[in-house]
């Protein structure tokens, strides 16, 4: 097993240890799903076809969002609280010395966490939601597109949170940028309300942000709102954001590396 696969596997095993917390999280995500679903149903009863969704699509969208919360770390503004602590207290100097790529290490760590979250916190809300409401399911090539889109969503989310985490090298405490990123993320990802509810250019701008690539994009592909070319465009935008964010992260890592001062004595 290669180093990075090992890191990802260990991260998955580590997150699998907290079973009660995982169950509580899945329960909470599911319950909020019900609240959101009822609000959306009330809205779609008034206006049965806003933004190209019917009521079934709106409810499916809502539970998809609840299933992806943990995997894309919607409420985890940094890569890991442990990492921000290590930057603040200086232990990061040791990490930067390790014979492994710093960004690659944490990306692997994140992928392990996300796979665990996708299975154990993502599947329950979706299944329970589907037991109570009518859902729209993807079929044929769309299934593959959804899988690819979710994988890209996880990488884009890591890309954003990695940048937020690195601000700690300059600010010592990433709490400020983290709070702003989380607010932007909650709204622009489509988690709070489907972005199709936003009118005109506001909606277009919101759907082009990297946050939209974390929840709105995979959900839109799942719901079959777009044809083949539309799906390709969404995937393309996700790839673009993933590459841009990871490259920016690499450059910032190099600059951060030069900022670290090791105090000895």
């Amino acid at each position, binding site marked *: 097993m290669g180093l990075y696969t090992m890191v990802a596997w260990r991260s998955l095993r580590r997150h699998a240890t*907290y079973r*009660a*917390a995982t*169950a*509580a*999280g899945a*329960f*909470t995500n599911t*319950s*909020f799903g*019900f*609240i959101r679903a*009822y*609000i959306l*149903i*009330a*809205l779609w009863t*008034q*206006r049965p076809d*806003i933004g190209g969704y019917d009521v079934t699509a709106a409810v499916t969208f809502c539970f998809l969002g609840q299933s992806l919360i943990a995997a894309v770390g919607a409420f985890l503004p940094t890569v890991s609280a442990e990492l921000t602590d290590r930057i603040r207290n200086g232990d990061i100097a040791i990490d930067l010395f390790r014979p492994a790529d710093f960004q690659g290490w944490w990306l692997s760590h994140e992928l392990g966490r996300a796979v665990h979250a996708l299975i154990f916190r993502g599947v329950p809300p979706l299944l329970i939601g589907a037991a109570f409401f009518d859902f729209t399911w993807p079929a044929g090539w769309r299934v593959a597109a959804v899988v690819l889109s979710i994988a890209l969503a996880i990488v884009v989310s890591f890309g954003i949170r990695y940048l937020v985490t690195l601000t700690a090298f300059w600010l010592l*405490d990433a*709490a*400020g940028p983290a*709070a*702003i990123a989380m*607010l932007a993320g*909650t*709204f622009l990802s489509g988690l*709070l*309300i489907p972005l199709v*509810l*936003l*009118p005109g250019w506001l909606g277009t701008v919101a759907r082009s942000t990297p946050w939209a690539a974390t929840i709105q994009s995979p959900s839109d592909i799942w719901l079959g709102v777009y044809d083949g070319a539309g799906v390709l465009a969404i995937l393309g935008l996700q790839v673009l954001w993933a590459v841009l964010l990871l490259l920016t992260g690499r450059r910032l890592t190099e600059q951060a590396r030069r900022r670290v001062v090791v105090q000895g004595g």
Partner: protein
Amino acid sequence: MAEAFARLADAVRAFGLLCWAWTRAAWQYPTSLLLLTVGQAMATTLDVLAIVVIFANTDELGGFSATEVLFLYATTSTSFAIADTLLGTAERLGRHIRSGAFDVMLLRPVSALVQVAADTFSPRRLGKLVPALAALALSLTSLDTEWTGGRILMVPVMIICGTLIYCGIWVLGASYQFVAADAAEAMNVTTYGGNYVTQYPLTVFSSEWVRALTWVVPLAFVNWYPALYVFGRPDPHGYPSAMQFASPIAALLALVAAGFAWKAGVRHYRSTGS
């Protein structure tokens, strides 16, 4: 009886002192405190934003107008912000138990609940009050109802009762962590989820939910029933109009239940060891 009141007064005094100490500590970093307060205010504003976007697409939701929903949002959020400032840190009980800090709290001559509630108290939580009060002012001036003396009086009464109900729910949630410290997140359903549910007219939800929010977790008494009185509307689910005045009873019951749960929790608490 007199002794009970003296104990209560002591607890309130200790709570005030602890909160003041934590406020002074937070004030050591004024910029950070200010930014975090703004952050809290903005987080609550997101909920209004959701309501605004919904009403940009429709004129009514569940049979209620935008101003009525704004009033529901404003009242529940005001109550929630106050209760969250007073007792919100109680959600960290699980952490105190794991780290052993709770053992230390039990040894001190101040109620453990007061210590848990005041721990890392920060005035930044009051930031949540800003959008809530702004929405309250806006909805009160634009609400289409006949303002009788009773209805005017109902507004402060429902906010106070709502605050007490939320306080009860925070303490119940904290007590639950004596049993399941690792599953603390599940209590978010009744606290944050409760605040979310009550921002919308209950006609939106299924009748099972309305029953649960009335008889199991009395969140419907935070604002739904008293608001129906303020709006001058008959109950859409056919509950008697006496329910619209029952919030003080619900608040009392919530506090009594919370008191018993906390006492039982502390009695059965076993330290995690050294």
